[in-house]
């Protein structure tokens, strides 16, 4: 197989470089919905929301990562994802995520009439929920 149609994917968090591999397709949770990137995609820059980065094909086939708060740069042959939070689903502490969710709900209840606080609370909730979803899927996958 010609490796000319392989994307070079990088996932970088403040602490380390999690992924530096090739893939044929990458799913990225942009803040306005998932986008799938194939080789030759037009250059794109987007903020990412809480969700999962999924890699398909190449060296990194089948890998998934939970990410939040970051952005992605797409070039025709390269995808670079920068995220403040980036974890493997099996590394997620679901108890901790549950606590975060509760904390978010408390924030939401206490927000009063301030739009800013609501946004903040919603963000915490969204992050915790997708974190839980991500870890849940991994647990279900390992049992089957």
């Amino acid at each position, binding site marked *: 197989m010609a490796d000319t149609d392989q994307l070079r994917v990088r996932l970088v968090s*403040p602490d380390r470089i999690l992924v*530096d591999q090739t893939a044929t397709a990458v799913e990225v949770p942009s803040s*306005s919905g998932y986008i799938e990137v194939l080789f030759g995609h037009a250059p794109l820059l987007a*903020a990412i929301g809480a969700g999962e980065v999924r890699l398909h094909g190449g060296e990194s086939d089948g890998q998934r990562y939970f990410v939040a708060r970051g952005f992605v740069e797409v070039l025709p042959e390269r995808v670079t994802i920068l995220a403040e939070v980036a974890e493997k689903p099996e590394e997620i502490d679901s108890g901790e995520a549950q606590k975060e969710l509760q904390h978010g709900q408390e924030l939401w209840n206490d927000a009063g009439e301030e739009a800013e606080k609501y946004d903040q609370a919603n963000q915490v909730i969204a992050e915790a929920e997708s974190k839980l979803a991500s870890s849940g899927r991994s647990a279900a996958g390992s049992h089957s």
Partner: protein
Amino acid sequence: MANVLDLRRRIRSVKNTRQITRAMKMVSAAKLRRAQERAITSRPYAAMLASVLESLKRRIEIVDPDTGEVRHPLLKTREEKRILLVVVSGDKGFAGGFNTNIIKATTHFLGSNDGKEIDVEAIGRKGRDLFRRRYPAARFQEIESHDGHAPRPERQRSSQIEVIGDHPGLLEKLSFDAARELGEEIVDRYVHEEIDAVYIVYNEFKSVIQQRVVVERILPIIEFGRHEITESQEMSAEERARAAEAALTAGVSLQPGEAEADIQEFEDEAKKFGTAEVDYIYEQKPREIFDAILPRYVTSQIYHALLESVAAEHAARMTAMDSATNNAGEIIDSLTLTMNRVRQAAITREIIEIVSGAAAL
């Protein structure tokens, strides 16, 4: 003259001390290796943030063409009347001049900014304890809410310099989340115009033999990807030689390792991140992306400073403990010499007594 028994006791005690300092040195060396790795692996992220901001800056109008004002609050410069100074020291002592140098640099900064209102935010127990004794803590007055909007608490300033915030254990288990909380708080205060500038004092760590105490401006941001260092204190040649010697005996390499070379390559590439000469499709408006990234840039700068400071602290402790171990060795040598001399003298005296006693018979 001291007797042999006393000297023997002292030698034993110094030997025990030497064992402790040697153990501390090896522990610091191990911790240093880990801290060094963390500091290095965090570089690409920071470099990428800086380069993407730089590239976005060219695509949006930062300065409002009508009023000539900067649009983003974090880029706005104001006259420096109220300054926030973040002081990063260590949690523990036994690290040679590490904490002293930080405190000296801070004191110097406070002295040269006389007449301004300065808040000292101390991270690390050593600095916190000292500045708390020296300056009063900041007090805030909660204001009753009138219209559903909770107003920001009102500051009750009683002194030119006050200590603000408390972060116990932040350095011990340094995580990005902790740095983020700190960063968000600082950004929040800056945006609400409670402070006009933010500086950070910390030990910059380039390698075991290249460290310096720096005062760096974090806010307002003038240029991306550059450390706005306003003051710095380099290591002396003597300190450097001692550090190199300590590193050698502790098995810490001075040369950049393979992992570091990889990162270096990555970092070079990171600088190109987001700067390709193509027209990007922006999922969101460039301005929105820019606004979202800017506060993160501040956080990443703070995180970077904290990581470097932790690595520098371990390096300083390793060097200090190496000197202590060497000094203990010297003391042991000189005490052993004295002890042998004393013992010899006693024997000689006894022989003379016996001989002269025999001659008198």
